[in-house]
């Protein structure tokens, strides 16, 4: 019986998934399985935030771990294993969006609509009660908490897809602006508008759902 959602490139037709599989080769076989057990969920969750599709996220995790196997001698332990694998995943995600950018038009006029004009009076100043609130506590204290990251994820998921893509390429992958423009075939001014919208929306969402939430 075929598994539901089996990847097209795989010829596996397992009746019942087991947690381990007998390895074929002698050289450090347990590492790839251990990577799946220890890092699979984290890599998958990050990939899913980035691409929003399960099948694509699974493929990206597979590509990441395959690349990691091929280059594991180069991992000299300067960073944690998870940082190293996450770094490879980020490159795979960039390649994914580079390919997507060539195939589809990346600007989305709907996502460029100004949703925050009501925060300013016609003269251009903040409406007093709608101005940014003070955020406490400081980042070091907050960023240890799982609930903060759940809120962050919730806010990222709320962004329109194309704006989220651009923001995460810039802020998570730290891709330079010019390279993002080249990857996605968008102008710099389009990029800046999209980043501005993303930052305004995220700031608002974090303020409402975290820093100013009902305690």
């Amino acid at each position, binding site marked *: 019986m075929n*598994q539901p*959602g*089996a*990847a097209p490139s*795989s010829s*596996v037709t397992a009746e019942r*998934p087991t947690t381990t*599989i007998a*390895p*074929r080769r002698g050289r450090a076989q347990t590492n*790839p*399985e251990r*990577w*799946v057990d220890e890092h*699979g*969920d984290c*890599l998958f*969750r*990050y990939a*899913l*935030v980035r691409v929003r599709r399960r099948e694509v996220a*699974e493929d990206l*995790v*597979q590509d990441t*771990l*395959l690349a990691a*196997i*091929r280059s594991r001698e180069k991992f000299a332990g300067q960073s944690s294993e998870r940082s190293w694998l*996450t770094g490879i995943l*980020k490159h795979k995600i960039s390649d994914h969006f580079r390919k997507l950018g060539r195939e589809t038009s990346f600007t989305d006029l709907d996502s460029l609509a100004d949703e925050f*004009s009501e925060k*300013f009076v016609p*003269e*251009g*100043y*903040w409406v007093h009660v709608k*101005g*940014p609130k*003070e*955020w406490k506590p400081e980042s070091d204290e907050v*960023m240890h908490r*799982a609930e*903060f*990251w*759940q809120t*962050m*994820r919730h806010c*990222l998921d709320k962004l329109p897809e194309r704006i989220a893509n651009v*923001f995460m390429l*810039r*802020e*998570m992958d730290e891709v330079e*602006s010019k390279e993002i423009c080249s990857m996605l075939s968008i102008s710099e001014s389009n990029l*800046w508008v999209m*980043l*501005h919208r993303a*930052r*305004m929306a995220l*700031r608002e969402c*974090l303020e409402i759902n975290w820093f100013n939430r009902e305690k």
Partner: protein
Amino acid sequence: MLVWIISWATPKCRDVVRILSEQMDHELPLMMRFRLRLHFSVCCWCERYMKQLHYIREAARRFPEHADEAGDPALSPEARFRLKHVLNSQ
């Protein structure tokens, strides 16, 4: 009077927030940087906004390492099995 002059001489808040976002991605001319500083002297909200942009940047940079804590979903058992099979066949 001074507040009025500074408000007149510097960008409006709606433009400042846009300029602050651009500043995250490329360096602004010296005169604009000076005008922003001047604007902050009469507008605490825009200065707060700038700090919050940096906060968001830091959170975004740390997010990949904390994706695990960001909640469900996880790899399905089928996906996990398929991954291990593909990796072990290398």
